[in-house]
């Protein structure tokens, strides 16, 4: 589902985000991306979501070579890759419902189907009663769950999360991880960047450790 062939990313500032990464995630696999800040976790995720383009090597996602994707195809690519951020990136002048519906509105889905899917998403993250409130009134954990519902609502085959539990206490973090495990069970491919090794060690999933822009350790998943 996701493949990196000797990928390097050098920023305009001269900083090398990634230098020669090889990585392969099969469809339906779930993996964690660990490493110090600046090790290249975010850069790797950005290359998959085409927030950045690789300066060397090739990135394949869902059967497409991202190097060859034209700029005008990027929106359609992003519809197949759900992204979750540490800072949630919600629209604070819109309700929870409208936030979650955004990917469907953008894709031109009809009203009835949108409503149905958003409700299902809200149900999945346990926020069914909050659909009419504004994100600002929610706790950090609830806001993150809105972000997760938004990433999921268009049923993308790939889900990326960048430090999704970065601002949450351990209890809430475990709940979020539990959600991710559920998604993986229904076949979604997940790649989650986190520095919270204690949280993920016992999950028995693959852990890819980055150091200085390279894969330092890849403890293959048990499944």
């Amino acid at each position, binding site marked *: 589902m996701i*493949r990196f062939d000797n990928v390097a990313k050098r920023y305009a500032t001269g900083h090398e985000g990634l230098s020669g990464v090889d990585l392969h995630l099969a469809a339906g696999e779930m993996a964690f991306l660990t490493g110090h800040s600046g090790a290249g976790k975010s850069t790797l995720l950005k290359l998959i979501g085409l927030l950045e383009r690789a300066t060397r090597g090739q990135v394949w996602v869902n059967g497409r070579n991202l190097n*060859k*994707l034209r700029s005008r195809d990027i929106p359609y690519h992003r*519809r197949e890759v759900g992204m979750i951020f540490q800072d949630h*990136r919600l629209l604070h002048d819109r309700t929870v419902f409208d936030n979650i519906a955004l990917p469907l509105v953008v894709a031109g889905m009809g009203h009835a189907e949108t409503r149905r899917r958003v409700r299902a998403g809200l149900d999945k993250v346990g926020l069914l009663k909050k659909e009419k409130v504004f994100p600002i009134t929610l706790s950090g954990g609830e806001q993150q769950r809105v972000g997760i519902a*938004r990433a999921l609502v*268009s049923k993308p085959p790939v889900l990326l999360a960048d430090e999704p539990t970065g601002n949450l206490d351990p209890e809430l973090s475990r709940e979020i991880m539990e959600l991710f495990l559920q998604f993986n069970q229904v076949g979604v491919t997940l790649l989650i960047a986190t520095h919270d090794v204690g949280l993920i060690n016992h999950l028995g999933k693959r852990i890819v450790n980055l150091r200085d822009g390279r894969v330092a350790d890849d403890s293959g998943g048990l499944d």
Partner: protein
Amino acid sequence: MARRDKARKFKRNRSPITWLLRHAQMSLSSLGRLSRNPISTAMTAAVIGIALALPSGLHLLVDNVSQLSSSWDGSASISLFLNENVNDEQADTVRRQIALRPDVGETRLIDRDQALEEFRRLSGFGEAIELLDHNPLPAVVLVRPQERIRGAEAVARLAEELQGYLEIDLAQVDLQWVARLGAITGTIERGVIVLAALLAGAVLLIVGNTIRLDIQNRHSEIEIVKLVGGTDAFIRRPFLYEGIWYGLIGAVIGLVLVLGALYLLDGPVQRLAGLYESDFALAVIDPASLLGLLLGGPLLGLAGAWLAVGRHLAQIQPD
């Protein structure tokens, strides 16, 4: 995992009904967004309205004046001053001869006594006239050309032909001032076009700047929409509709301003026309100008928005 040579095609929504529906929704939601900031919207639209009202109002004014001059032009009459030695009986014969011409409409004879009487009454030199031992004024035949003889040139040609009669000393068409008025209105008309072009440019900049500020205010929203797969067209659309709405509201305001000005001018113009014994009335705005205003406003708004969107949207990329 798939390493096919040909990448799968992305699904694109190409149904025209969905497309239309989306546009309708988008235009309404843009209007809704504008109505949530009524004061700033009204101020921007009012500036656009004034910018549109100025050239349309002037255009209307010039239109009215040239209409006025053309109606004068058509009713121009020719004064034929007869030889001094033509007596009243002969003068009436000349008048009847001229009246038979196919290019002449009405004729009227002012004989020497009548002319003297009129001069005495209107000039204020009555007493001076008394001192003369004979009437110095010639008889005059007033000629109104036939309906189909219109325009300064045709009338001038007729006057020239009438000048050929032996009994006629001078055939005078007082049309020069009409021609001058025409030249002046022509100049002003050109000025109005220049002004209109300048103000159209101003409208472009006003809308462009307003949309630019709006894009800046919605920076994070645009980023997020790009993150969840919004196409450039999708992101552009609300801003373009905003520009169209600004233009349309501005055009309506401009129209109201022009009609208001016409209403205010109507009374004085009626009085003025009354003094000149003319039945001239200010023309209300013509359908072409109306359409031009109501279409031109939104088009200018769209163009201004397009300028802003083209320059600034590409700069916003999620990170």
